[in-house]
């Protein structure tokens, strides 16, 4: 006889309303009699309803993995047990997640998605998240016995496990050059170059803590890389931005001078724009900081220049332990056209990860390490020269020894002379 559905009066209240309901989806799976996951999803609903009633979580971690890898599966075992230490919701007592890396840019053909569903219907819960916050497809809800079988099927399809624990994590890149005229970089190639170079550090976690790569094709940073990634790669350009003056005139004619002055000219953060008397645009490119605002507003008239490359920032992370940190500019501009350029990128990332592996404390992110040791020690460690683009202002306190000022000034003059 089919297992009975648990009463879920609180979850039921999340079935109404215009937004698609995950509860309706969970129930669809739980009621899918004859499918291997139906009873598991009944008990999953039972445990989730309990959380809603008591306002407590009931999962604990553990050790579950696949042969050959040390990470990438998120083990979950129920903590809800009766007086005899037996699980109250036994069919969902093991509910592990497989993190699977999507194609860069999260593109799919429906045949692939359908095949993923078939695999997950056979070995898992039938519940999938597109995508988790770190950018993985999250196949949620698998017994310990089925983890290897499910992984083998996904792996044969050409998909690999993502990162978890103190490891290089799954990366993310924006849609970029595939569909966006703002793209200044080959985002998918950067993303794949970086993550795929360090798969050993992803699949066999042995770093001090997590290390994330994220790639945005322009400074709009749709991947939130500066704020979230240990190494953020942001597309940019170093020649003049492109202005189609005929389209500028069209835009001014359509929207009016006031709109253009209020929403484009005066919104430039460095005052680099001016509207000419003939409704063309004057741009002081030397003072443009590539913020993207005017280009975002006037998509047809304005676009990034042609001399593309990337800015690299290191050390972004969220709160724990020392507070929020944005990434810091470490490479103001790197050309990324040729294979040699991409090797240089790999080498840079390798130097950062090696330095991190050797110098960070346990559970310390790159940003925290840099905060602790100072930017200069980090730069010396990875062999990068200082650059005034790394700072918002020079120091404001005098607590520094400057004995060898002349030598340091000489280095600057020599670097300047070398161009």
């Amino acid at each position: 006889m089919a297992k009975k559905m648990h009463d879920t009066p609180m979850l039921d209240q999340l079935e109404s309303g215009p937004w698609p309901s995950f509860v309706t989806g969970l129930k669809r799976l739980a009621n899918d009699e004859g499918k291997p996951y139906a009873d598991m999803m009944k008990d999953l609903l039972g445990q989730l309803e309990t959380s809603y009633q008591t306002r407590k979580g009931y999962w604990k971690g553990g050790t579950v993995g696949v042969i050959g890898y040390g990470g990438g599966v998120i083990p979950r075992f129920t903590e809800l047990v009766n007086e005899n230490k037996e699980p109250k919701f036994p069919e969902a007592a093991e509910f592990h997640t497989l993190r699977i890396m999507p194609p860069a840019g999260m593109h799919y053909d429906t045949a692939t998605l359908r095949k993923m569903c078939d695999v997950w219907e056979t070995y898992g819960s039938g519940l999938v998240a597109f995508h988790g916050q770190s950018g993985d497809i999250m196949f949620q809800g698998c017994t310990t016995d089925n983890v290897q079988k499910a992984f083998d099927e996904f792996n044969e399809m050409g998909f690999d496990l993502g990162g978890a624990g103190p490891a290089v994590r799954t990366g993310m890149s924006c849609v970029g050059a595939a569909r966006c005229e703002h793209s200044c970089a080959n985002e998918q190639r950067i993303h794949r170059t970086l993550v795929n170079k360090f798969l050993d550090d992803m699949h066999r976690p042995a770093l001090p803590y997590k290390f994330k790569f994220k790639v945005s094709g322009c400074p709009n940073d749709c991947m939130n890389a500066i704020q979230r990634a240990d190494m953020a790669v942001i597309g940019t350009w170093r020649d003049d931005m492109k202005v189609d003056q005929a389209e500028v005139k069209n835009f001014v004619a359509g929207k009016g001078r006031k709109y253009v002055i209020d929403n484009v000219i005066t919104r430039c953060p460095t005052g680099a724009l001016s509207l000419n008397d003939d409704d063309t645009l004057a741009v002081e490119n030397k003072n443009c900081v590539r913020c993207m605002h005017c280009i975002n507003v006037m998509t047809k008239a304005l676009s990034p220049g042609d001399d593309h490359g990337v800015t690299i920032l290191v050390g972004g992370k969220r709160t724990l332990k020392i507070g929020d940190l944005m990434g810091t500019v470490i490479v103001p501009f790197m050309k990324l056209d040729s294979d040699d350029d991409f090797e240089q990128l790999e080498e840079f990332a390798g130097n950062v990860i090696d330095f991190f592996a050797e110098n960070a404390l346990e559970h310390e992110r790159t940003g925290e390490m840099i905060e602790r040791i100072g930017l200069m020690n980090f730069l010396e460690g990875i062999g990068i020269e200082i650059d005034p683009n790394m700072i918002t202002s020079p120091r404001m306190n005098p607590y520094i020894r400057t004995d060898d000022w002349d030598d340091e000034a000489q280095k600057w003059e020599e670097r300047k002379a070398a161009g």
Partner: protein
Amino acid sequence: MSTAPRMPIESGVPDPFPYMHPTLKNNFGAWSYHDRPRPGVLHHVAKNGDQVWTVRAGTQRQMDVYTIRKLCDIADEFAEGFVRFTIRSNIEYMVTDESKVQPLIDKLQGEGFPVGGTGNSISMISHTQGWLHCDIPGTDASGVVKALMDELYEDFIKEEMPNRVRITTSCCQINCGGQGDIAINIQHTKPPKINHDLVANVCERPSVVARCPVAAIRPAMVNGKPSLEVDEKKCVCCGACFPPCPPMQINDPEHSKLAIWIGGKNSNARSKPTFHKLVAAGIPNNPPRWPEASEVVKKILGAYKENAKDWERMGEWVERIGWPRFFELTGLPFTKYHIDNWRGGRVNLNASAHIRF
């Protein structure tokens, strides 16, 4: 004799081109401009004149296979069998024939998937795991998002905000949800409750001591067993000790509250990226629909919508009008907890005679 186990193929991140819509593939790196013909639709034009219309729809992120197959059926019928997902779990269909846009929108809406999330809308809320799958959650994620998106539905399908609004939720203070124009995050208000019988067996004590940002944890013998104790006067209730030491239970059905933060921005457009700032706390963690939290969120959104200028993100708006005016417009109380006394907090104090009257 046992057979050798199957070893993984370490293939890494898949090449996206085999999974990419042909028009996107053909015009890779060769797009000219875009516009938005209506909310939920992007229209991109390539340098060679190729055009693609992208229809964006919201999903519940945590999807059953039937929902995914339904989304696939729609792609097969209207969009040449290709889709992609955005960072905020919206699905995107690309069509090269403009006449298919409206029927696709009708189909998506008919199947219950709201079309929107583009331009100056409130896009889908970024979403963590919560009670459904996390081992340290103070609240749920999917339920909070569903409840809020029901309330904000009209602003998802329309583009009527001053600029885009990106909302995040996080079910603990690690804040996997990230920065947002509005962030709704757990804020614990009581120190961890320690099960001293379990600490010695479960926790690596020195590394737990090292996790604490305020050095409030020290090793101790309790009831003859090696354990840890917390200096409750120092403790900031962040919960950093809980993941490495589950017997230090930080989650509390009553005292784990919700806090609301605003003004986070990831983009470099106009101003540099910013972190969100605390505006409200002490909000009850009240499933299944968290009405008190959504009330505060709607109040903030209402003030922003009414008062911000075009293209101002939430944080840029407050930067222009000043925080006293923000608290006045929203009616939210200003408390001593808004004043930062963490390291570097002085930078947030007003060291000027700039006062608005």
